């Protein structure tokens, strides 16, 4: 009977409102209120003095590239990056090769998870066949195969009629739709935010209006169908305002923001560094401020990384030709602590909430809580420790991070999944 006793931690559990010095107890992979004195003698102990004990972090938006793009990442390497970052549950996107638009591919992903994953991975399936936006994928079969949501990922469904039917159909299975909000016709060839800087750099602009249009469309369709739409990686001030009003009207809209859109702006693009190229793009300081305000007042529900590995040679290209996306899992916690806690004075408990209970609740996952009976998914971290992040020494197969080589503050010490320590002070356990 595996027992674990985490001692002298600062326990932060937003799900139970706990934020105090104390101990955590685990029996058979689940949280328990206490262990009997005899059990305590046998329990493995972790001295967590100086560490925060939080629920394992939850990320609703990662790309693990398996099947088909395993030069960039695999479920094995991606979940190791997650463990390094303190994440115990991640939701992976279906833009694999082939796309996860059928139960067989989902089964393949489940097999890889069972074989290679060190944290919990929950797959999503496509909305449309091949993410082509033309015909519905077998959404019922995908649900039966175990997807937790459907999304066409970067290939936002452009047809309003198709999106409406997908919502109606998915609602039957209580399956949320996640949407990357981008009007294609307005963003042909675009590589960065449209504005003063794209004008100066001579790069094709991606106007925030192209996001706002689809956000508004989704609000309207969610209202009309009653289906839950989760808006991925919001970036624009106007979009935040649309979501704020929709929520006030009781519409079933939720939203996420990424660490990079919270921490960075388009000002970083002056030297055409492809490590700042992602879709949706970095926007202006006013947009960044609006995202922070949206997280503060609950308009934006949670943080999600959009962890998007690409190999060094893929990113080492002309700016126009480099793929979109950056790594996120290993740097998310320190980056978010830096922006929200240190810069914008969010409480530590609030930051933890945005990365644990909130995303878990949003998809109804059994995660994000340290309450007795919950799975013993725990992240122990030192919010103050400074360390240098070196992407090449990271667990991901790729290195495409804008924080490569930088000092970060806040470091994960232990990642525990179902009571098993999978990451301990710089090392994946068992590797």
């Amino acid at each position, binding site marked *: 009977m595996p027992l674990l006793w985490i001692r002298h931690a600062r326990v932060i559990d937003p799900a139970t409102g706990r934020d105090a010095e104390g101990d955590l107890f685990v029996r058979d992979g689940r949280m328990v209120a206490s262990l009997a004195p005899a059990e305590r003698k046998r329990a493995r102990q972790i001295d967590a003095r100086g560490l925060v004990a939080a629920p394992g972090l939850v990320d609703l938006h990662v790309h693990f590239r398996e099947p088909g793009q395993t030069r960039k990442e695999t479920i094995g390497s991606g979940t190791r990056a997650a463990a390094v970052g303190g994440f115990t549950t991640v939701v992976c996107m279906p833009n694999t090769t082939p796309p996860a638009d059928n139960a067989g591919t989902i089964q393949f992903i489940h097999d890889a998870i069972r074989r290679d994953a060190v944290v919990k991975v929950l797959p999503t399936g496509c909305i449309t066949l091949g993410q082509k936006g033309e015909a519905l994928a077998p959404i019922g079969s995908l649900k039966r195969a175990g997807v937790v949501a459907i999304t066409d990922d970067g290939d936002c469904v452009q047809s309003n009629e198709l999106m409406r039917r997908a919502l109606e159909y998915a609602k039957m299975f209580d399956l949320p739709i996640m949407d990357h909000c981008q009007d294609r016709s307005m963003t042909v060839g675009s590589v960065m935010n449209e504005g003063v800087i794209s*004008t100066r750099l001579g790069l094709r602009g991606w106007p925030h209006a192209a996001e706002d249009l689809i956000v508004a469309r989704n609000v309207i369709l969610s209202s009309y169908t009653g289906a839950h739409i989760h808006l991925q990686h919001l970036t624009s001030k106007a979009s935040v305002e649309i979501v704020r009003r929709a929520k006030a009207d009781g519409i079933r809209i939720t939203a996420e923001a990424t660490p990079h859109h919270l921490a960075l702006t388009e000002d970083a693009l002056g030297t055409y560094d492809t490590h700042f190229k992602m879709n949706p793009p970095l926007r202006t300081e006013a947009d960044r401020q609006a995202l922070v305000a949206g997280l503060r007042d609950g308009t934006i529900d949670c943080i999600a990384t959009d962890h998007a590995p690409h190999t060094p040679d893929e990113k*080492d290209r002309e*700016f*126009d030709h480099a793929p979109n996306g950056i790594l996120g899992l290993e740097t998310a916690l320190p980056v978010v602590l830096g922006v929200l806690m240190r810069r914008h004075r969010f409480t530590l408990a609030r930051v933890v909430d945005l990365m644990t209970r909130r995303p878990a609740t949003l998809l109804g996952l059994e995660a994000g809580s340290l309450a007795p009976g919950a799975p013993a998914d725990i992240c122990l971290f030192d919010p103050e420790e400074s360390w240098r992040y070196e992407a090449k020494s990271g667990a991901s197969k790729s290195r495409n991070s804008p924080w490569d080589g930088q000092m970060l503050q806040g470091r994960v010490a232990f990642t525990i999944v179902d009571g098993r320590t999978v990451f301990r002070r710089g090392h994946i356990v068992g590797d």
Partner: protein
Amino acid sequence: MPWNRKHLLTIEELSLEEIAQIHATAAAFKKILGRSVKKVPVLRGKTIVNLFLEPSTRTRMAFDMAAKRLSADVIAFDAASSSTTKGETLRDTAQNIQALNADMIVIRHAASGSPLYLSKILTIPVINAGDGAHEHPTQGLLDTFTMQEHLGSLRGRKVVILGDILFSRVARSNIHALVKMGAAVTLVGPSTLVPGWFTAMGVAVSHDLKSALADAEVVMLLRIQHERQRESHFPSIGEYTSMFGLNQARASWLNPRAIIMHPGPINRGVEIDSDLADGARSVILEQVTNGIAVRMAVLYLCAGYQPEQVIASTR
């Protein structure tokens, strides 16, 4: 201050003094263009590779000629028959060129920022011959050189750039040069092709041709591309010409001693009437000639010479 720049990537990063150094060097080289023996031996034994990954006639020929006037060996890189069509990356192509012992690389590329990218990879000088919609520094330098020949100092001079500004690297390089040199620049064209964001670069934006051209001392026209019509930036070439084309009547709004410029290639009868393009106020062909002298200056300086050496070099 001595010239210590190895690459020429943008005008944005040049100081006013550096622009003046290039112009002064170009003026010295221009003198030898009229001689019967037009060559000087300063780059003898050096190899310059013209890596043109996008079509170009004028710029490529001018760089070719400039290099030959300086006695360099020139190798033209033909994109159509090269390994880039087999999927070789720009990094590999450029590193191979460097490994072939080229001394300098002149690059034209459709992707903005690629000369900067190459400059970080290579140890040899990189000269930007036009990158996407970003910059075309030698064009901006030759245009301002030509303006100065006609107007003297550009401080306070009213310069109008008219046409497809949004997609124009020529416009951006001219804007940076002209603003540094103190000119009063107004960009004119349809609102879809001249967004207000340009004002952040220190210029005025107008969509009213008459008020913009009033008393202007330079009007620079940019080529209108049919592709922009397909992208719905304007309704038709005919409408563009009727709203923004330069004709005799509109040219009468200009300052009497105004010059008319165009980086080429010209769409006659679209952005400019033929009689104006060929008329007395047109300096379009002077621009081409000056393009050789300016590029000689750029190659000379980036090869490591100092501006004050040019007199001895051309003796």
